[in-house]
C-alpha cells in the first residue's frame, strides 16, 4: 500500500520530567491504515497517544499532520487539527450527567451552526452507525461497558473526523463484544474513509484488523519494530517482538 502518510512521527522523545519514557520514535501512519501502537504494559503507548492527540507535548522531535508540524503550531492552530480527529477512550469517557444523545450532540453544537432538528437527525444517525439506535435518552450509567465504548465512538465520529484514535478499545470486553467492536472499527474506517490509530495489546484485535504497527519496547526505551503485524510475526527476529506476538511462547 502506497497511500500518503497522514501522520509522520520524526525522532520523538517522550519524557516525564527528566525521566525518558521513549526516544527516537520515527514512523508514518498512512491514509486508510488501521495502525496499532503496541508493546508491553508501561512502555509508553498511552503517552504516545497523548502526544499524537495534543494532550502532552513531546520532549523532543516532531509530529506532522500532513505537512503541518503539529507541536510548532500555536494552541489555536493545534485546536484546528484536533477538531479533525476523533478520540475514544478506554472507559468511553462519556459525560455522565448527559444522555447519549447529548454526548454526541455536544461537538456538533460546539463546532457547527446547525439548527437543533438537524443536530437531532445527525445524533440519531451516528448512534445508529454504532448500533445504538433507540438509546438516545439513556445515561452512560444505564448501559453496559461495551455500549459505552460504542457510544464513545459515536461521539468521536460526530464531526466526521479524518482520523479516529482508540485507547485500548477492547479492554474489559468479552471476546464476542471485542470482536464485534473490531468489526465496527473496520466498518467505520471503510465507510468514513478514515484512518484508525489504536493503542492495544489485545492480540486477536491486532491480527484481526491491524495492517500497520509500531512496537515500543520498555527495555530499550525505543521502537524496535514497525510494519504489518502479520509480517512482524513471520519475519521479525527480535525476541521481544516474537514473545509479545506469540504470548511468550517464543523468546
Amino acid at each position, binding site marked *: 500500500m502506497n497511500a500518503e502518510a497522514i501522520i509522520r512521527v520524526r525522532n520523538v522523545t517522550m519524557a516525564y520530567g527528566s525521566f525518558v519514557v521513549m526516544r527516537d520514535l520515527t514512523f508514518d501512519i498512512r491514509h486508510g491504515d488501521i495502525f496499532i501502537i503496541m508493546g508491553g504494559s508501561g512502555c509508553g503507548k498511552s503517552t504516545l497517544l497523548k502526544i499524537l492527540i495534543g494532550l502532552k507535548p513531546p520532549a523532543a522531535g516532531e509530529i506532522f499532520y500532513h505537512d*503541518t508540524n503539529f507541536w510548532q503550531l500555536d494552541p489555536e492552530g493545534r485546536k484546528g*487539527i484536533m477538531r479533525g480527529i476523533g478520540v475514544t477512550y478506554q472507559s468511553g469517557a462519556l459525560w455522565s450527567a448527559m444522555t447519549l444523545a447529548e454526548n454526541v450532540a455536544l461537538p*456538533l453544537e460546539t463546532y457547527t451552526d446547525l439548527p437543533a432538528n438537524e443536530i437531532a437527525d*445527525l445524533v440519531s444517525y451516528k448512534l445508529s452507525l454504532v448500533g*445504538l439506535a433507540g438509546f438516545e435518552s439513556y*445515561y452512560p450509567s444505564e448501559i453496559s461497558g461495551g455500549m459505552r465504548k460504542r457510544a464513545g465512538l459515536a461521539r468521536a465520529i460526530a464531526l466526521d473526523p479524518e482520523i479516529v484514535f482508540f485507547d485500548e478499545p477492547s479492554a474489559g470486553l468479552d471476546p464476542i463484544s471485542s470482536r464485534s467492536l473490531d468489526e465496527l472499527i473496520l466498518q467505520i474506517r471503510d465507510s468514513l*474513509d478514515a484512518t484508525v490509530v489504536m493503542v492495544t495489546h489485545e492480540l486477536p484485535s491486532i491480527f484481526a484488523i491491524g495492517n500497520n504497527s509500531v512496537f515500543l519496547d520498555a527495555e530499550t526505551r525505543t521502537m524496535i519494530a514497525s510494519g504489518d503485524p502479520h509480517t512482524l510475526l513471520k519475519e521479525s527476529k527480535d525476541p521481544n517482538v516474537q514473545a509479545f506476538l506469540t504470548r511468550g511462547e517464543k523468546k
Partner: protein
Amino acid sequence: MDGFFTSLWLQEDISYHSANKRSSNEPGNGLGLRGKGGWAAQGKDMSSPNSSPSPPAGLSFSHPAPDTLCVQFGGVWKLGTRRPSFSEFEKALTPEVQRLVFNTDGLKDWDSMLVTFVLKIAQSCRARNVAVDQGGLPEGVRRLIALSLAVPRKKDAARKIDKRSFFFIVGENARAFVQAARDMLTFIGEVSVALTRLVRGQARFRSSDLGLFIMECGAEALPIVSLISLLVGLILAFVGAVQLAVFGAQIYVADLVGIAMVRVLGAVMAGIIMAGRTGSSFAAQLGTMQVNEEIDALQTLGISPIEFLVLPRMLALVFMMPLLGIYSDLMGILGGVIVAVGMLDINLIEYLHQTQNAVRLMDFWIGLFTAGVFGVLVSLAGCLRGMQCGRDSAAVGQATTSAVVTGIVAIIVATSLITIACNVVGLN
C-alpha cells in the same frame, strides 16, 4: 423504517473487510471537517465550517416518468453548509409518485449532512409506500446507510414519559423521606457498632490514616478559620459599636463579641467552614472510592468500610472541631479588639478585662460542647453521603453537594436545639 429500508438498500453485497475505498472520482471525501490538501495547512483552522466559502447545497427535482421522482443533489452537502429545507422534498413527493431515484451528478462534496437527509427521505417514502432506488447515490452514502441500518432500532429502549398525579408525587416523596431516614439511622447504628469495637480494641483501621485526617481537619483548616472568624468578629463589633455608641456604651462591644463568639458563633463558624471544606471532601473521597469499586474490594476482604474508612475520618473531625471552635473564638475576639482599639479608642487592656468579666466558664463549656456536636454531625453527613454515592462521576458531585447541605442544616438545627435546651435547664 428499518425493515423497509434494509430490504431496499442492503441488496448489494457490502464486505466490510475489503479495502474497497471510495473511488477517487467519487464526489467528496465524506469528511466534514477536512480541508482540501490537508486540513491544517499553514496552521489555518481548516476545521471551521465557515472557514472557506463553499457552493451551497443544492436540491432539485425532475420526473423522468410520470410516477417517478428524481431527487437531484448538487453543490456541497457538508456540516458547515446550509441544508435545503426538507419541506421542499415533501412538496415534490406528490401522491402520483410511486418510485424515487437519485441523481448526484452535480454533487461536489458531502458528509453526514447528506446521509441524514437521504435517511429522512427514505423515512418519508416508507410512510407513503414509495419505492426507493439507491442506484444514483454515491457508494459511500449507500455504505453508511447500510451500516446505520445494520442494527435495527431498539423499539423498547425508548423511555415512556410517566404522567404522575400530585398524590403520587407526594406519596413517592414521603416514601423517599422515610427511606432516607431509615438509611441514616442504619448508618448511625453501623457507626455506633464500629465505635464500640474501637473501644474494645477490635476495630481495624490504619493509625497513619487517622494522623493524616487530623492534619487535614486541623492544621490545614487554620488559615480559612482564621480569616472567616476574624471577619465575623470585626463585623459583629462594628455593627454593635454603632448601636452601643448611641448610649455611650461602646465598652460593651467586648461583652457582645466575647459572649457571642465563645458561646455559639465560634463553633457555628468553624462548623460551617468544616461542612463546606471537610464534609464535602469526605463525601467526594468516599464517593470516588464507590465509583472505583474500592469499597467493594474492602468488603470482599472482610474489612468493614465503616471501621476502615468512616471511623478515622469521624474521630479526626470530632477531635479537631472543639479545638477549631476555641481557635475561632480567639480569632473573633481579635476582630473585636481591632475594631475597639482602632475605631472606638478603647484601651486594649480595658477591652480584654471587660471580655474576661463578661465571658463565663459555662459559656466556654457550652461552646466547646456545641463544637463537638458539630464535629459529629459534619463528619456523619460527609461520610453518609459518600457511602451512599452512586457509581458514576455525576453521583460524586451530588454526594458532595448533599453532604454540605446536610451538614449545614444539621448545624443550624443542632444550634437551635442546644440553645433551647440550655434555656430549659437554666444555663443562660
